[in-house]
């Protein structure tokens, strides 16, 4: 009797297992594995004398706080992170206010300029700013000295400094503050502002005393997110910090993994400390958002008045033009000029312009086609797979009933706080040895990209899914449509814009990805960012500039093509 009941139970269980359950369970297990496996290796590695030797110790954590050099690098990281936060605040908030709330001419155009850094990459930004503000030969310095002080042989701008690093990071990450703040400014309740104005307070007093305090959670949220990314940035501190002997935690991790004698355990320990720091920032951000401080920014669809600035609009217009020049015009010009000269010189002359670097790239350099092919392959397939996995996760989280769904979401979003170079260390430790020896193949980059940027896909698909009421899906299920059919015929078409924007964002990120690639590439698997880094390492800034221009061109063509095909808006594309 017992035996029959057991087999009945088993049969019933089998009946419950349909394709949907299989897919959902497989994706959930895959996500757990993709994210937790490298993170686990990071922890394990940091607690062992050597990651692959079962000999446990806390030495490496003690060393971080007792070694004078490491302590200095830790303080550099903190200084740069806080400095970047302030820089983003200074750049992002006024621009957001001007664009979102005032009648400044051409403000919609400037909104596009403000998100330009998303379209390029920190590595390219650093190359551009070396061309512009290297203390002796930077274009800005050369022009300044020729115009104002020919006796000066150095400066006045110096990108090889802590301030130079903060400036570049600030330019790159200020769009986060801009987007968060402008969004909040557009949807806030204007009642308090109106009351202030009725009480006789002017535009600027009202803005400082009423408007900005009302949207401060959005500002803080953007600033904290910018700080999280700045703390984990590698390219900008590596390129700008090396000549001035400035090291931060991420560049130290790279050094420890590539310098003899290698110390992977210390690298893992520093990585974990960095992860702790970024998660702390994210926790503070989460607390702020959860406090409900956005009560003046409700879902009621307020449309605050556009503030008429009168003659002041020319001042705000000038600020926008200056911002555009610094963020877009100057870096693009520096890259274009650099790509068109054979070698950089203190003597600027148009007669030296040549396509020599481009000719070299496409006719002689052995890596160009390999790197372009690999980057495009990873971007196309990586983005597609990542978006598919993300869609299933979002569906499970927002439509599922499993008590574990929020844990799954938390794990999928975890890599947001794990800097690329740190995550890459975990992946390298986990995937270099048999039976999971993917190292030496393009597959390890594929796995690395998907695991690291899963949060971008999940965020894009989730934000679309929460806007769609589940009624339609429920109706389909009641009508007998299977889980897969509902997902394919109802849910995915409804969240199509979010999926498209997510795919495009991931495509752009993968096309220029650097932090993960630097640790995981091997011969034959080079990607475009590795070529750029190699050029920089060789001091070949002209070819680096030319390759940067090629990458920017591919990105812009892709965005244009995607927009034509699907109507995806550029402003919906944001990086993770």
């Amino acid at each position: 009797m017992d035996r029959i009941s057991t087999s009945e139970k088993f049969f019933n269980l089998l009946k419950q297992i349909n394709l949907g359950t299989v897919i959902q369970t497989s994706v959930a297990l895959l996500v757990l594995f993709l994210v937790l496996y490298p993170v686990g290796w990071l922890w394990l590695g940091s607690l062992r004398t050597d990651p692959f030797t079962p000999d446990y110790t806390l030495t490496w954590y003690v060393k971080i706080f007792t070694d004078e050099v490491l302590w200095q690098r830790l303080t550099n990281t903190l200084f740069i992170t806080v400095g970047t936060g302030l820089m983003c605040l200074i750049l992002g908030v006024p621009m957001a206010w001007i664009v979102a709330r005032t009648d400044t001419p051409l403000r919609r155009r400037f909104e596009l300029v403000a998100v330009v850094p998303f379209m390029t990459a920190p590595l390219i930004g650093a190359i551009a700013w070396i061309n512009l503000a290297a203390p002796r030969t930077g274009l800005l310095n050369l022009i300044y000295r020729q115009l104002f002080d020919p006796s000066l042989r150095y400066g006045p701008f110096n990108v090889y400094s802590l301030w130079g690093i903060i400036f570049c990071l600030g330019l790159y990450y200020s769009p986060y503050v801009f987007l968060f703040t402008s969004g909040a400014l557009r949807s806030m309740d204007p009642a308090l502002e109106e009351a202030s104005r009725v009480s006789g307070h002017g535009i600027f007093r009202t803005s400082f005393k009423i408007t900005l305090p009302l949207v401060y959670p959005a500002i803080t949220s953007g600033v904290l997110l910018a700080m999280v990314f700045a703390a984990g940035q590698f390219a900008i501190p590596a390129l700008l910090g090396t000549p001035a002997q400035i090291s931060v935690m991420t560049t130290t991790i790279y050094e420890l993994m590539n310098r003899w004698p290698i110390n992977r355990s210390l690298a893992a320990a520093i990585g974990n400390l960095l992860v702790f720091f970024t998660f702390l920032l994210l926790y503070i951000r989460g607390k702020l958002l959860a406090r409900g401080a956005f009560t003046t920014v409700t879902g009621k669809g307020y449309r605050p008045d556009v503030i008429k600035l009168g003659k002041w609009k020319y001042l705000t217009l000038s600020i926008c033009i200056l911002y555009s020049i610094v963020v877009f015009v100057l870096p693009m010009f520096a890259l274009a000029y650099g790509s068109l000269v054979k070698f950089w010189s203190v003597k600027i002359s148009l007669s030296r312009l040549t396509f020599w670097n481009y000719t070299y790239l496409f006719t002689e350099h052995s890596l160009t086609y390999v790197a372009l092919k690999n980057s495009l392959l990873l971007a196309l397939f990586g983005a597609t797979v990542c978006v598919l996995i993300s869609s299933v996760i979002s569906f499970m989280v927002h439509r599922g009933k499993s008590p574990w769904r929020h844990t799954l979401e938390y794990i999928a979003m975890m890599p947001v706080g794990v800097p690329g170079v740190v995550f890459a260390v975990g992946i390298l430790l986990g995937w270099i040895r048999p039976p999971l020896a993917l190292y030496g193949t393009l597959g390890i980059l594929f796995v690395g990209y998907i695991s690291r940027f899963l949060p971008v896909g999940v965020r894009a698909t989730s934000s679309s899914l929460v806007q769609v009421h589940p009624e339609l899906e429920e109706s389909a299920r009641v009508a007998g449509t299977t889980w897969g059919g509902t997902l394919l015929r109802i849910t995915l078409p409804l969240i199509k814009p979010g999926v498209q924007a997510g795919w495009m964002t991931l495509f752009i990120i993968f096309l220029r990805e650097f932090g993960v690639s630097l640790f995981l590439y091997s011969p034959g698997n080079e990607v475009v960012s590795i070529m750029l880094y190699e050029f920089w390492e060789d001091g070949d800034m002209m070819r680096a500039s030319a390759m940067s221009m090629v990458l920017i061109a591919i990105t812009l063509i892709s965005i244009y093509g995607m927009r034509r095909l699907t109507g995806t808006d550029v402003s919906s594309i944001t990086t993770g």
Partner: protein
Amino acid sequence: MEKKNRGMVLITLTVLLLFVMLPLAFAETTFDPKLVEAAKKEGKVSLYNSGSREAGDTLLKAFKEKFGISGEQYRATSNKILTKVMEEIKANNIYCDVVTTGSPNVLQLQLKGLLQKLNVEQAKHYPKTQKTDYYVNVTGIGLFIMYNKDLVPENEAPKEWKDLLNPKWKGKIAMPDWTASTSPMIVYKMLRDVYGTEFLKNAGEQDFVVHKAHGAAANAVATGECAISFEMLSDRIAVQVKKGAPVGYSVPSPTTFNPRQIGIPKGAPHPNAARLLIEFVLSPEGQKMYNLGYWLYSFRPGITYPKEMYPFDKIKVYDFTPEMWIKFTEELPSLIEEATKFWRKK
């Protein structure tokens, strides 16, 4: 014999000798057909190279043309290559077939028992001091001082190592990252032996502008970002000169070579192709192609250098004996630590 007849006989003999010698001089090196066959069966070779990508590409292209075997190149700094090869061997996931880096990194691999015996015919033509059973010094990289001619007139350019300590160069000296490349540490060791540690400590007062690798440091001098270099590899100087950059160089006395070593890691996936590539690069044909076009010196006797290269025999070399290289390898971590103490920005 009459004087006139004697002259005729001498001329005839010389002409005959030339006829005999000329084909020998132009004769191509023959390679073991069995090795060629086995290498072709493997079909590919992977080269880990700390030299310039161009030099590596030139070598692999010529190798493919000659033997039909395609090659892939991984290019990075010496220390990065060392760690990558060790990582691959440790994980038993080896991709590298041929490793060539500045000294003493390939020697380090040998001392750790991570190289296989070379057994290449062409190694027999190299002096005993330039090889072991496991590697051969494929190239001698000249370690010179480079300067920007627009910023530094030739008569004011530093000629000797001690000239680098002149306060007028403070903040203007490009220095390759001594923790990433081996050449700065070879010069460090030489100067330590010749001038003592005080000299190196004083050098730290010059506030070096550090660049990740020699290429970047050379570029800093070529563009005028820095006026001079601390030490510069002869091939990096060649790259800038060929581009038309305003650079000059001095050859201090003494200076030394950084011998670029070449070997095959244990467990290399294409050992025959690796061996054939090494035979090829060590041959006179390979040496001319791999070295001379890039202002690199060859340890193979009988190589004629082009005129634009600084004459090999005029370089006063501070010789590192094989024993000194082994000692240097052992001392390297502590030397790097000492250099960092002296040279890190205060």
